[in-house]
């Protein structure tokens, strides 16, 4: 079963979309996601998919068209990056608030200004409160697998929420890696037939989307929207269990690496987790009890599950590939939120790294672990938030 190929992250995601064969894709090109939808548009052109590809004049229009198509009753996908996601901003909330299961690979890229096309998580983190489910991927294989699973999660009848599948711009989107493709038939069987809920094109049952709801009920609709998010982790785990049966590849809400007996932990998402694991191995060889936790699902954030996984460590370093100017990194804020519920209160430090595609080097991981050893021994934190790999 399956095919082993050498492909980029973009190519792998385009393949997943081809195998899923959505009814409608509306897209607008933006580096580094351009190549993803360009490949998909070739599949449309070559008749490999039945998708109606809508070429629009902006990302705002792309998401608007996706919302219309999803409300009409179609299985819908798009992809974007950085400024494109930023331009979609108001429509992202509408997709989620209207409970439309649109799936969107997001090739993470820095935001202007200054203009930069390379990978960091500023775009995805800016959209963390939009009500979209967010899955982050370490490599091309995870980006492909997460895309396939995202359709099942988003379209689950208890959920019906849009989902972003994030991967690091260029680092994953443009690097060629070994990827195992699932057979077309298996993907088709896995995602199943799309079930439309309240489709506008069901003309025998006319309905209205997007009503004005003011002070008397808006608060209740938002309360209900939060409740749906609380059901997402269970569905993500169920879908991951089915996915493991099909492929043998295991997914959870997050991944842990050598964490069970660790005294210290690094929390980091996406491609930087790979580098960190290598350095953890080196320190483990020297007897240092260090482990890693890599969140996969950032929205909804699995506070309790992460607190349970980290409750035995003395010190945690949270590495953020995005910043909140005048605040802590977004991942740090969530991890300290999780720590709040823990009886043992580990020391937590925040490192901002890799902005605008700056390389995350093994030596930086070493510096973080060396500092963590000090923090774990003394219990003292010199500076909570610092930048690593920055010219001084």
């Amino acid at each position, binding site marked *: 079963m399956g095919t082993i190929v050498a492909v980029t992250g973009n190519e792998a995601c385009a393949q997943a979309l081809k195998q899923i064969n959505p009814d409608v894709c509306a897209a607008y090109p933006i580096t580094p996601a351009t190549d993803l939808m360009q490949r998909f548009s070739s599949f449309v052109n070559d008749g490999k998919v039945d998708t109606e590809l809508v070429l629009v004049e902006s990302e705002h229009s792309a998401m608007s068209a996706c919302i219309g198509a999803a409300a009409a009753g179609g299985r819908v996908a798009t992809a974007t990056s950085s400024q494109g996601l930023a331009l979609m901003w108001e429509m992202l909330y509408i997709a989620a608030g209207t409970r439309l299961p649109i799936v969107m690979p997001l090739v993470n890229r820095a935001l202007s200004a200054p203009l930069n096309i390379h990978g960091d998580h500023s775009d995805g983190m800016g959209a963390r409160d939009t009500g979209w489910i967010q899955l982050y991927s370490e490599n091309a294989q995870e980006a492909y697998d997460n895309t396939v699973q995202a359709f099942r999660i988003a379209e689950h009848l208890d959920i019906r929420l849009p989902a972003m599948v994030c991967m690091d711009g260029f680092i994953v989107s443009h690097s060629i890696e070994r990827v195992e493709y699932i057979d077309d038939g298996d993907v088709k069987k896995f995602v199943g037939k799309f079930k439309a809920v*309240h489709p506008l094109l069901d003309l025998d049952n*006319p*309905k*209205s*989307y997007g009503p004005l709801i003011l002070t008397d009920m808006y608060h209740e609709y938002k309360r*209900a929207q939060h409740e749906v998010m609380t059901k997402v982790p269970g569905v993500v785990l169920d879908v991951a269990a089915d996915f493991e049966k099909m492929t043998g590849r295991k997914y959870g809400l997050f991944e842990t690496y050598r964490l069970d007996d660790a005294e210290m932990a690094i929390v980091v998402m996406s491609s930087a987790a790979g580098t960190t694991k290598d350095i953890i191995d080196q320190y483990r060889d020297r007897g240092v009890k260090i482990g890693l936790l890599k969140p996969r699902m950032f929205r909804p954030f699995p506070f309790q599950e992460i607190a349970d996984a980290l409750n035995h460590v003395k010190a945690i370093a949270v590495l953020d590939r995005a910043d909140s100017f005048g605040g802590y990194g977004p991942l740090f804020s969530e991890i300290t939120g999780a720590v709040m519920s823990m009886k043992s209160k580990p020391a937590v430090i925040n490192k901002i790294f890799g902005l605008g595609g700056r390389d995350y080097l093994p030596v930086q991981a070493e510096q973080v672990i060396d500092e963590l050893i000090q923090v774990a021994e003394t219990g003292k934190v010199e500076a909570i938030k610092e930048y690593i790999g920055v010219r001084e």
Partner: protein
Amino acid sequence: MSKKYWETLPQGSVVLEAGSSAKFKTGGWRSMRPKWIEENCIQCMFCWMYCPDMSVKVTAEGKRAEFDYDYCKGCGICALECPGKKGKKAIVMEEEGK
């Protein structure tokens, strides 16, 4: 266990009942009230055409009927467009509550 109020809301705020906006009577927004003076009306139907809502009623025979004050917001477009008869308007705006 009984459901909380917010648990009973339709998914995604979709309105499943067609034409339910008719239940929302917006005439209460009106500060100026159009008055139809039938003797000056030439049945040109301009008021019906120009009304941005559907507040000019029409009879089964296609004749101009009374205003629908449940939805008329008193914008005054009908009164402005009304050609009237021999210089006398068939629609005039009056202050509400007078």
